[in-house]
């Protein structure tokens, strides 16, 4: 299990990084936070491109950095596969030459997917003879993913790999990232400030702000908290629900089963049995104290008020709703809560429109285990 602790100060009065976190041995740990919060600096510290004033980095049982005992393994011997925002492919080498660069330098006893396997996984077989200058942004990023994976790393470090791409290119690369995550069987540290990437990829979430770790834990657990302004202060704040497709017939609403209930949706994520994670935004959930009748809303779920918490806006509150073992968040006005006399323990109905689910936020997530 990767273990990271870094302290660094740039200049005397400059930016201060002071963070520590762990990550699951397999799966995606997302470092999430606003621009300039130190996420990328953390990756540089792990990769060895930046030497922090104090710190300790342990990967796969190997101590890569321990300033207390004077250990600082050189970046070229750390075996941290890094994917940069700007791909950084070698312009004088072909795509194949780029892919083989790390493979040639990997230790002989290191195991991992082979050249052909990675090329097939990322769908870059037709690009092998090309030069990076002739590739699209999305293609470049896919080659960069392959190059990092083929260096047989202990960990994959991804520094906002989609941030430089437009929406169409992001949509092109994101499924490959999910496939790579499932194939790599490696810890992946993924830096982003885009919530849809968190929703699609993150198993474990580390929230960062001003160089510090604000909270860390399983992505779904953190999304269900309303006391983390980084998440709950957003307009798209809400829970992440792991679901399985129960029925998906053309022309009809799809039915998604989640622990404690079922959602009917206009999404068509795949055939029955497909596992996915949907973001259920708090602002899309309404609360009724009596069972509503004669209403267009398709999803009316029996729930219990678990907790009521203040939201960032003084006129709004978050209502935590227990639906079986699952938790939903509803963002409603303080006024409504008083009118309905909401209090913890009160049985209520949670209302969710079938058309509210965002296509972007619902991607097959075969990799995570609930």
């Amino acid at each position: 299990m990767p273990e990271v602790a870094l302290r660094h100060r740039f200049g005397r009065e400059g930016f201060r990084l002071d963070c520590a976190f762990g990550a699951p041995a397999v799966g995606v740990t997302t470092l999430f936070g606003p621009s300039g919060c130190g996420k990328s600096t953390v990756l540089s510290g792990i990769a060895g491109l930046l030497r922090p004033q104090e710190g300790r980095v342990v990967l796969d049982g190997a101590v890569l950095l321990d300033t207390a005992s004077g250990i600082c393994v050189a970046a070229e011997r750390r075996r941290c596969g890094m994917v940069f925002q700007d791909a950084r492919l070698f312009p004088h080498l072909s795509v194949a030459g780029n892919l083989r660069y790390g493979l040639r330098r990997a230790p002989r006893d290191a195991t991992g997917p082979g050249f052909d396997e990675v090329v097939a996984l990322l769908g870059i077989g037709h690009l092998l003879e090309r030069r990076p200058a002739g590739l699209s942004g999305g293609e470049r990023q896919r080659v960069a993913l392959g190059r990092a994976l083929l260096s047989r790393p202990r960990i994959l470090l991804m520094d906002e790999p989609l941030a430089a791409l437009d929406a169409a290119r992001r949509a092109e690369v994101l499924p490959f990232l999910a496939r790579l995550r499932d194939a790599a069987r490696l810890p992946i540290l993924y830096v982003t400030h885009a919530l849809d990437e968190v929703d699609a990829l993150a198993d474990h979430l580390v929230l960062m702000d001003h160089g510090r770790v604000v909270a860390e834990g399983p992505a779904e657990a953190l999304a269900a908290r309303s006391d983390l302004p980084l998440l709950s202060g957003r307009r798209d704040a809400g829970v992440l629900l792991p679901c399985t497709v129960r029925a998906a017939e053309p022309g009809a609403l799809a039915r998604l089963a989640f622990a404690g209930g079922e959602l009917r949706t206009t999404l068509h994520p795949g055939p029955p049995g497909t596992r996915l994670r949907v973001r259920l935004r708090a602002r899309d959930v309404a609360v009724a104290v009596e069972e509503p009748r004669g209403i267009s809303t398709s999803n009316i779920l029996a729930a219990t008020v678990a907790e009521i918490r203040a939201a960032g806006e003084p006129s709004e509150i978050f209502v935590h709703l227990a639906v079986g073992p699952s938790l939903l968040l509803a963002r409603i006005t303080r006024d409504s809560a008083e009118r309905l006399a909401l209090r913890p323990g009160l049985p209520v109905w949670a209302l969710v429109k079938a058309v509210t689910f965002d296509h972007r936020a619902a991607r097959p997530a075969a990799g995570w285990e609930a």
Partner: protein
Amino acid sequence: MQRRAGAASASRSPNDAPCVPGADAVSVGLAAEEWQAVRLSLEVASRSVLVSLLPAIAIAWVLARRRFPGRMLLDALVHLPLVVPPVVVGWALLMLFGVQGPIGAPLHAWFGVRLVFTTEGAALATAVMSFPLIVRAVRLGIEHVDPGLEAAARTLGAGPIDRFLTVTLPLMSPGILAGAVTAFAAGLGEFGAVITFASNIPGETQTLPLAIYSATQTPGGEAMAARLALISFVLAMAGLLLAEVIARRMHLLLGRGA
């Protein structure tokens, strides 16, 4: 052309060429001396580039990528030959590499190498004069190399020498090439430092510009001076055009577009 060919056949023994230029050069056959000067210029210029290329790459890399005390001093020192009169550079070389000099004396005593008044000496003087040109061009080439690519190579397991050879060097090669060709073209015409340090000996150190100078000092040498000047001009142009063509091809190879 015809005239020159005829003149060449007339001079059967180039060794008879007079040591004092201009004495009776007209009667001995100008073409032989002309070609000798051209050959010698090419030899001196290429040897000067060969000698200075590796140290120039090293110093350019240090200047571009390292921060250390005395960096500005080193930078100034490298550029000195651009601003100091060439004659002064020749004089300084004479002081250092003369058979009595602090470097020249041991060279002569231990290895029997004498640089003053030799072709090697002319190449050394030319190398020193063109050194700043190579360093500047190579440095520009290095500054074109994105350090991010070297960082990427590090994370892929490439050590310092490995990544220099496989990433930095290929990407800075247009700069190296530009520097080498410019230095070569400039080296063909180095005058002051060569004549001061290596003197003006036909067949040994009398390169094109020295031959032109000698011709202008000789009664009736105007035609020879004109022909040599034309050759100088053609060589320099050819060198610059060649550099441009190769640079374009290399940029294409490096995927940067022309």
